[in-house]
């Protein structure tokens, strides 16, 4: 048998694409567990669920990072991180971490990374996570890919992070081959949340913050919770009804709200309604609004532009109502009704009201 020709010399990859020797010690997948006012943002559990897949693909540990004051909520966050499959949790408890501020949080996170050397660090793309991620990535001089919608491990064991670009019309896959950790943020509700295993525990590693309040320039004067201001809770709603320009006039928003009320749903809209001032910005669904992942999404008079699609196609079931049988919304909705929303919305509200009344009498 003829000798196989010698393999050609490995193609000289550009220097910036090779992992320097000193970074090869970076191991494990980390997820920042976002704790604020004693409550963990659910995106943290979504990220642990996703991080588990990445850690398994790499054959490494999945670790949580919990930063907060010494308090019951902090301990609970640590315990729950194990339930969502972390093997280990790094904890810094310090009164300076009671309210989120960039300076102490950036120090806490960069100290932990420099000491314990993760290869991947994931954060929720929340206002807190983004504020922190940008500062941490710059301090560590590493790559950060924001708002990822898909994460996978490449052949050379690097993280392939896919995110929408050009307003969602395209997707791009981004690699950070020569720096560590590979950082990503993911928006709430983009990844599915696994079921917790309440019996699981793991290793807790505690570290100090080593910072004095006098050295922190920024002070929190007050926190005004949204419960006082009636903000929409779209991201985690089970059922969402939304209206688009097919509603034609602001007074027809009422039809969407009525159906939402009968279903116990949240209501939302496409972007033009926000631009026209018919609904508030916290109700916009889509790329520049909220990502939703409800059991049921009812889209009324919405064309289904790509920017709207990326924020809503994660719904388990989508029913679209549109006058135009060729509307792009029917390309990703599961069920469709071709017709006038102004007639169909009240009919649907009435049909649900009746159906639920029957069921309640029976039950």
């Amino acid at each position, binding site marked *: 048998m003829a000798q196989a020709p010698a393999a050609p010399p490995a193609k000289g990859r550009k220097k910036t694409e090779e992992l320097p020797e000193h970074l090869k010690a970076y191991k494990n997948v980390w997820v920042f567990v976002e704790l*604020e*006012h004693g409550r963990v943002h659910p995106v943290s559990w979504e990220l642990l669920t996703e991080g588990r897949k990445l850690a398994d693909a790499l054959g490494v540990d999945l670790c949580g990072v919990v930063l907060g004051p010494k308090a019951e909520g902090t301990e609970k966050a640590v315990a729950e991180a194990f339930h969502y499959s972390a093997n280990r949790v790094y904890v810094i408890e310090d009164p300076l971490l009671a*309210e989120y501020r*960039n300076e102490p949080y950036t120090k806490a996170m960069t100290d932990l990374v420099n000491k314990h050397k993760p290869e991947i660090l994931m954060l929720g793309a*929340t*206002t*807190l996570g*983004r*504020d922190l*991620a*940008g*500062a941490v*990535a*710059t301090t560590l*001089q*590493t790559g950060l890919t*924001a708002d990822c919608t898909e994460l996978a491990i490449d052949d050379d064991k690097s993280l392939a992070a896919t995110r929408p*670009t*050009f307003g*969602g*019309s*395209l*997707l*791009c*896959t*981004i*690699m*950070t*081959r020569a*720096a560590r950790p590979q950082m990503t943020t993911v928006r709430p509700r983009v990844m599915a949340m696994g079921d917790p295993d309440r019996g699981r525990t793991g290793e807790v590693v505690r570290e100090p913050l080593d910072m004095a309040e006098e050295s922190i320039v*920024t*002070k929190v*004067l007050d926190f*005004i*919770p*949204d419960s006082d201001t009636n903000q929409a809770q779209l991201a985690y709603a*089970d*059922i969402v009804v939304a209206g688009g320009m097919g509603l034609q006039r602001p007074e027809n928003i009422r039809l969407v709200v009525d159906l939402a009320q009968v*279903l*116990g749903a949240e209501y939302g809209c496409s972007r033009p309604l926000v631009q026209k001032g018919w609904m508030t*910005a916290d109700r916009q669904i889509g790329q520049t609004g909220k990502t939703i992942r409800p*059991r*049921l999404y009812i889209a009324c008079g919405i064309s289904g532009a790509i920017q709207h699609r990326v924020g809503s196609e994660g719904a388990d*079931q989508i*029913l679209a109502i549109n006058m135009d049988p060729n509307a792009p*919304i029917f*390309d*990703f909705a*599961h*069920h*469709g009704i071709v*017709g*006038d929303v102004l*007639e*169909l919305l*009240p009919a*649907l509200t009435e*049909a649900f009201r009746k159906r639920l009344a029957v*069921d*309640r009498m029976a039950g």
Partner: protein
Amino acid sequence: MSQGPNMVVCIKQVPDSAQISVHPVTNTIMRQGVPTIINPYDLFALEAALKLRDQLGGKVTVLTMGPPMAASALRKALGHGADDAILLSDRFFAGADTLATSYALTAAINKIGAERPVDIVFTGKQTIDGDTAQVGPGIARRMGLNQLTYVSAIPSIDLEAGEISVHRRAEGGVQVLKTKLPCLITMLEATNELRRGSLPDVLRAERAEIKVWNAEAAGVEDLGKCGMKGSPTKVSKVFAPKPRAEKAKMITAEDGAPASVAAAAVETLLDADPRLLSVLTKQTTVA
């Protein structure tokens, strides 16, 4: 301090993404003839800076990094009332990710500040075309500015004391923060509405000379930290989203009456998701 704050607003020229499409066969981006706009989020930053100038005086410089054609975005900003404009443009900057972008912008802001220290750097919350929400924090970190992201209002600023307080959108609420100048502010969207330029501003903008700085002029020290070379992240592929295999199943009724279609729709939804009914009854009996 009597002369009002020295402010820099970082803006970016972006393609109007609503008009970008993908070639169905070659899967490449069809950008030809796609108009460009100022990144919509940056307009809130510009207006916030102009408002502060209304109150306190001072100066607003708009800064962008981009190809020569990005000068038109700066001209537009001048037309809305900015005082000065600088275009950071050099082939060494091409292909920059957020880390490399914040490096180059930081050099330019330092250069602007050499004349008179910069008090506030403004950016938009994010851009619509690529890097999201990280250039601002990157600049803040590099320059050692106090970082204020997702700012919805600036209720007070005290130049004497060098202090500023802001409302910052957080998860589940609004933080009221107080910090020292100099600081970096990323403005939240929909917090103000960009003014129309006055006639003199518009005329001035048309004639204005836009300063163009290359890497050397901006005082960039390490070209290795710029552009593609200085970017730890690399785009490995770009592709169009997969279309869903199946289209929506249409729900109809024989008589075509809205009530009949609606009733059919309710049954379809409940059949497709057997647990939906319990979710619905649980939620609505409370009401």
